[in-house]
Structures are given as structure tokens and as C-alpha cells.
């Protein structure tokens, strides 16, 4: 009992420390929240790699055409990555954009192809399942006035959450928006979302373009930029909306790819775990792994307790022949049994912190909608899903199971 309690308190303290650190950083950086107004408008290429996207491609193109940005500075190209459907024909109907067709080679190869064709000095990719808000680009480009900035990330949001898994992701993405802004203050963004993150094209070309054999090429580039000690910025109110998996299985495989990709890339850039990289190397990256471990620990702890209690309850009920009417009669409400020990107090505290994080993200990313039911669903289920995905990713990694993505094993 003693050691168990000590571990619980220690992990709670560490978790609380991270939360307070992020909150403190956010509030000490509020003067930097407004995006810098661009001194000049850079020429931008936005590439849409598309593989069998006939249903969503025109929506994505429409959102790009509505971008509030001078047309002569904006270069939109669609790369049809050997689709078997009408993606190419649909995209070709738009006269304002350039459309290319190539043999199927995966997202990385489509992006590299686009990189060769790109006219802009800045380069961004937008998946065909995502749409951008009209002002996103304008809000992001100002950061490039700083020559040390090599990438700028938008705020990624879930488009029209419907199923309960999408609602969970909706809150999760909001949480990510807060975290990314804080990490940008610390120059420690290590995960850039794929959609519409702007990069300096020269840098991409000089360092070999996108890694075609990477599960998460966006994470690889983020770490590449960090390892060159360049900066990644974030425009918190530049909204990009993405369609997220509706059901458990596709979501599971998406996370498997993300988390395995994250582990692979962090392993590849393991030299970042070094005081040379200051805060990123000695605090942010280790804390990312520690946070995952803490969540997994608490989920397991809870599940074990829950199952032991459940098992005992079944044993107890069986002794009375599951006579629920009588059991119900002896049920009395007594507030004494509402336990309010230190552990619960700290749990409530984390809940309060979560509310603050998500509220800050909603306010500063100018989120207009408020999906009330999403929050309780998220709080109830997310940690279990999160722990499960990470454990599965760890399992796949240890067992060296190949993860198939877009029909190709990576």
C-alpha cells in the first residue's frame, strides 16, 4: 500500500508539473499570440496529393480557390498518384490550378514530385480529405519574415464531428492546438500536422525532400528542422479542417501509423535527446515519453482495480443467487461513501486543467462551435483509447509487424 500510494502521488506530481509548465509558458507568451503581419507576401505552392479521392477532391480545391491570397502568388497543384477513379478528370475541370498525373508511388513520392514542379518559395501540402479556411495562409506567412523560421503550422481541427469517435478526436485536436502553440513558444514543436504546414521550399530541396519510406513524413521533417536548430512557428487561428476516421478500425490503423512513425522518427533523431538541444532534448522530448507512460500506468491501474472489484461483486452477487430486488431495497444513499481523498482531489484538479487547456485552445483558435457532448465522451474514454493505441504501436514495433499504408507496406 505504501509504495503503491507513493508511485501514484509521484506520477500525479509529475503530470501536474508538466501541466503547470505548459500553462505557465502559455500565459508568459500571450504577447506573442498575435500573428506577425507579413512585410511581403511570399509566393506559395500548395500541393494536393490525391489517390482515389474523386469524392472529396473538388471540395478541397474549392477551399483552396477561396483562399484570401493574391492569385499571382499562389500556385495550386494536384498530383494524381495513379488513381483508378475519376480524380484526374474532376481536378482537370478547374482551370486555375495545375494537375499532374503520375504512377502510384505513395504520398511521399507524390509530394516530392510536386516539390519539383513547385513555383513558390514556400511549400505546403494539403490532403484531399482536408479543407482550409480562407484566411489561413495569410495568417501564416508573416512568420517567414524571421529567416530562422523554416516551417509554420496551422491549427488542425476536426471537420463536422458526427460519430462519437469523431467527437473524441474533436476534443483531442483542440488539446493539440493548445499544446502546439505552447511548444512553439519553446521552439520545441516535434510534431507538425501534415495538412497545410508551410515549409521553406529551399530547405526541403536541399535536405532531400520528403522521406518516401517514412510512416509519418511530417514528423520526420519537424525533427529534421529541429536538428538543424531552426524554428517552427504556429498560427493558432489559421484553421484547417480535416475529415477524421468515423469508426474504430480505420482510426486504430491511423494511430498505429502515427505512433509507430513517431517512435521510428524519434529513434532516428535520437541525438536530439542531448543538452545541446537544450529544452527540447532534456525536457520536452523526454516529457512526451514520460506522459505517455504515465497515462498507460494510470489506465492499467484503474482497469486492474475495476476488474478486481467487478469480480468480487460477481462473487458476492452469486452468494445471494443474484436476488437484485432485495439488494436494491438495502441500497441506501449516504454521502459518507462519496470518497473525497487526496487522489480524487488531484483528479478533479487535472479535470480543471483540462478544461482550461481546451478553453484556451477554443478561444484563441477562434473556434465558433461548441460540441457540448464531445467533452464528457472524451474525458470518459480518451485515456483508454490513447493507452491502447500506444501499447498496440509498441507491440507492432517490438514484433516488427509491417504496417500497411495506402496499399504499400512501409
Amino acid at each position, binding site marked *: *500500500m505504501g509504495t503503491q500510494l507513493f508511485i501514484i502521488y509521484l506520477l*500525479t*506530481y509529475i503530470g*501536474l*508539473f508538466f501541466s*503547470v*509548465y505548459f500553462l*505557465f*509558458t502559455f500565459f*508568459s507568451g500571450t504577447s506573442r499570440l498575435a500573428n506577425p503581419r507579413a512585410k511581403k507576401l511570399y509566393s506559395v505552392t500548395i500541393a494536393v496529393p490525391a489517390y482515389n479521392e474523386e469524392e472529396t477532391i473538388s471540395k478541397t480545391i474549392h477551399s483552396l480557390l477561396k483562399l484570401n491570397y493574391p492569385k499571382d502568388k499562389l500556385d495550386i497543384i494536384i498530383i494524381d498518384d495513379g488513381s483508378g477513379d475519376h480524380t484526374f478528370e474532376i481536378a482537370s475541370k478547374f482551370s486555375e490550378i495545375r494537375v499532374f498525373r503520375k504512377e502510384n508511388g505513395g504520398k511521399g513520392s507524390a509530394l516530392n514530385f510536386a516539390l519539383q514542379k513547385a513555383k513558390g518559395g514556400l511549400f505546403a501540402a494539403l490532403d484531399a480529405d482536408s479543407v482550409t479556411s480562407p484566411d489561413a495562409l495569410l495568417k501564416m506567412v508573416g512568420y517567414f519574415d524571421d529567416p*530562422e523560421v523554416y516551417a509554420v503550422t496551422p491549427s488542425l481541427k476536426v471537420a463536422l464531428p458526427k460519430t462519437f469517435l469523431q467527437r473524441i478526436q474533436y476534443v483531442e485536436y483542440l488539446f493539440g492546438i493548445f499544446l502546439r502553440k505552447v511548444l512553439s513558444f*519553446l*521552439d*520545441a514543436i516535434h510534431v507538425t500536422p501534415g495538412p497545410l504546414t508551410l515549409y521553406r521550399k529551399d530547405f526541403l530541396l536541399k535536405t532531400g525532400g520528403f522521406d518516401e519510406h517514412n510512416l509519418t513524413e511530417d514528423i520526420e521533417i519537424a525533427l529534421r528542422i529541429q536538428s538543424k*536548430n531552426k*524554428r517552427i512557428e504556429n498560427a493558432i487561428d489559421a484553421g484547417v479542417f480535416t475529415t477524421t476516421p468515423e469508426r474504430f478500425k480505420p482510426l486504430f490503423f491511423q494511430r498505429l501509423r502515427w505512433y509507430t512513425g513517431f517512435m521510428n522518427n524519434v529513434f532516428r533523431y535520437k541525438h536530439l535527446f542531448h543538452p545541446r*538541444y*537544450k*529544452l*527540447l532534448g*532534456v*525536457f520536452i522530448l523526454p516529457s512526451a515519453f514520460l506522459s505517455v507512460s504515465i497515462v498507460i500506468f494510470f489506465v492499467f491501474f484503474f482497469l486492474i482495480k475495476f476488474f478486481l472489484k467487478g469480480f*468480487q461483486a460477481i*462473487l*458476492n452477487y452469486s*452468494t*445471494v*443467487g443474484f*436476488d437484485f430486488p*432485495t*439488494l436494491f*431495497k*438495502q441500497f441506501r444513499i*449516504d454521502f*459518507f*461513501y462519496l*470518497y*473525497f*481523498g*487526496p*487522489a*480524487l*482531489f*488531484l483528479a478533479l*484538479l487535472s479535470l480543471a486543467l483540462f478544461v482550461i487547456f481546451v478553453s484556451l485552445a477554443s478561444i484563441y483558435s477562434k473556434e465558433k462551435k461548441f460540441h457540448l457532448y464531445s467533452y464528457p465522451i472524451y474525458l470518459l474514454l480518451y485515456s483508454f483509447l490513447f493507452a491502447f493505441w500506444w501499447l498496440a504501436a509498441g507491440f507492432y514495433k517490438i514484433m516488427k509487424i509491417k504496417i500497411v499504408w495506402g496499399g504499400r507496406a512501409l
Partner: protein
Amino acid sequence: MIRAFSKKRFGYVFLITTLVFLLGLYFGYLITNSKLRDISEITQQLQTQTTTTEIEYLLFNEEPCLLEIPDRVGDELYQLASKLTFMEEHLGKKDKEVLILKEYYSLLEMRHWLLLKKIKRECERDTNLILYFYGESCNSCDEQGFLLTYLREKYPELKLSVYSFDADLQNSALVSLKRFYNVSEYPALIINDKAYSGFVGRKHFEEIFKIRE
């Protein structure tokens, strides 16, 4: 300079975190304490009630059987037991305050039991007295306790008075009680002076009390 490792920031965060953490611990401690105070208050009331009954018993010395024993004492004793078990679960078996309260509670139980036993014998009352001993190294004590609570509710006509004792307590009165009934295995039940060791199931109870469904 990018990614500067700000010692000042870590200092502030450390201070805030520690403060909040300690505040949480203190708050939890306050609430735990108030719960323990609750228990001790109920114990006090119970003691007064038991003593009152004892004195009434003495007063009615000539006709002790005219004395009406309130059922409530038995009920409250029962509630107290479950509250103590609850605190034990959360604070641990070795928590000093819980141990003190439990020992006191056990003595109160014995006193109440002795009184009821005497009245039952002398006045031929139809109450059923059960002593229930549980221990830490016991497989089916949880179930036994659960079943006893259930039976109390299910068969009010049996007038069951259940007195539960933590057999691991080191109190000499309790040790004597255990020795008197030769209790060594848990769960152990003394039903109207007859000892049963090991789990007693529902069917068995119904046989003992001659209940037909």
C-alpha cells in the same frame, strides 16, 4: 537564442506545482479526518445507547423482560461497521486511527451482544445472534459479509443481530472470545452459540433457520 533552458521558469513552475499539490493533499486530509470524526461521533452515541439499555436492564431488575430493546442499536452498529470497512479500504488496514476506532467498536459490539444474549436467555426472545469473524488471509470473507447483510434485509422476521469482528485485532477481550469458541479458521460464524467454520452459504443458512421458500 532558441530553446533557452529558463531556470527561472522551472523555479516558478516547481513552486506552483508543489503548492497546488500540497493544497490537494491537505484538503484530502481534512476530509478524511472529518469522516473519522463522524465515525467516532456515532461510536459515542452508540455507547450512550448501549449504556442506557444496560442501566434500564438493571432498573427493571425485577422484571427485565418488560424491557423493550430498540432495534435501532443493532442497525446503527451495522452501519458503523460498513463505514469502518470503507475507511479501512481507503486508508489501509494499518492506519492508526482506523485501528483505534475498530477496537473500540469491537468492544462495544461485545457488550451489546452480551446484553442481548442475556435478555434472549432470560426472556425467551426469538432474536438470532450471529458472531462473524473475518481475517485478512481469508478467501471468502467478502462474500460472507455480503451474504449476512443480504439475509438481514431479506428475512426481517428472523431478527438477526450480526456482530462482525476483525479477527486480526490484538485485543485481549476479542482473543478470549475467539478462544472461547475455538475460532481459528475464517470466515467463522457463531450462530446462537453454535460454531461454524468456513463459508456458510445461503442454502445452509436457510436450513439452520428452517426457512422454506
